[in-house]
């Protein structure tokens, strides 16, 4: 199945995804796909995808390439966030010096690096789940990474503030 199946329309409008493309009478009022559409959606993907890609992405039709690229950019943004957390951990360990206690410094650095690694792995998982949902024409799942990230960064900031206040002068 080539990307051309869900290609870019001349007017710059994204074509409807998956099932809705096949039925010109469907204007979005009837969300239930027909049996033929269901069969097409659950069919094994064919075309130039490799075996590993087919295994990762599962069944379904290739989504509009712009949606795939948007998903890819979101993944890359998460990766940059993960790298920032890694860099933050390294920087706390390398540059904090005597500003905070040694134990707090090491714990904070370990926590930030662990959080960065977790965000990196979760971003890859998130990309796969989004891609699978798009291929099956399903609603996109909720994003738990944001909550984890917010809680992690908040805890790290609180720990850093407390460490600075309690640091031996």
């Amino acid at each position, binding site marked *: 199945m080539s990307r051309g199946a869900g290609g870019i329309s001349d007017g710059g409008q994204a074509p409807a995804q998956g099932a809705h493309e096949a039925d010109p009478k469907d204007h979005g009022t009837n969300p239930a796909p027909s049996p033929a559409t269901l069969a097409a959606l659950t069919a094994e993907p064919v075309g130039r995808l490799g075996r590993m890609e087919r295994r990762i992405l599962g069944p379904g039709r290739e989504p509009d390439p712009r949606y795939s690229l948007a998903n890819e950019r979101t993944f890359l943004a998460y990766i940059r966030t993960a790298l920032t957390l890694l*860099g933050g951990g390294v920087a706390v360990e390398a540059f904090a010096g005597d500003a905070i206690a040694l134990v707090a410094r090491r714990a904070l650095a370990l926590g930030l690096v662990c959080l960065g690694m977790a965000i990196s792995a979760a971003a890859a998982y998130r990309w796969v789940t989004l891609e699978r949902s798009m291929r099956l024409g399903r609603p996109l799942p909720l994003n738990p990474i944001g909550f984890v990230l917010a809680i992690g960064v908040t805890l790290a900031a609180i720990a850093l503030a407390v460490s600075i206040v309690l640091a031996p002068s």
Partner: protein
Amino acid sequence: MSRAAASPWDGDSGLARERSDLSWGRTMLAVLTVTGLFLRWIPAHGLATVVPMGLGVVAAFGLQVLRRRRRLEVLDGHGSAAEEVLGLAALVCLVGLAALILIALGI
């Protein structure tokens, strides 16, 4: 077959391909920045710092390879980013693991 029918990207006024390619480039710069931070560990950890730094450089090079592969795929209008996504996540986790080990060794 007309040219318009040949490419799925004709008429794309959102510059999605360029934005995605630039996003890969920014990510590579972020990897190199984190790798540069490891330099500060040389006085404390000595030669052991070479491990995360080397991994960082390898990750940046690998990211550039993945970026080039992905760029060709997108230009051609087929393929998915599955291998690139998993490869990049693994590279970042590897660099993080090296940093983690060095921090843990210092305890």
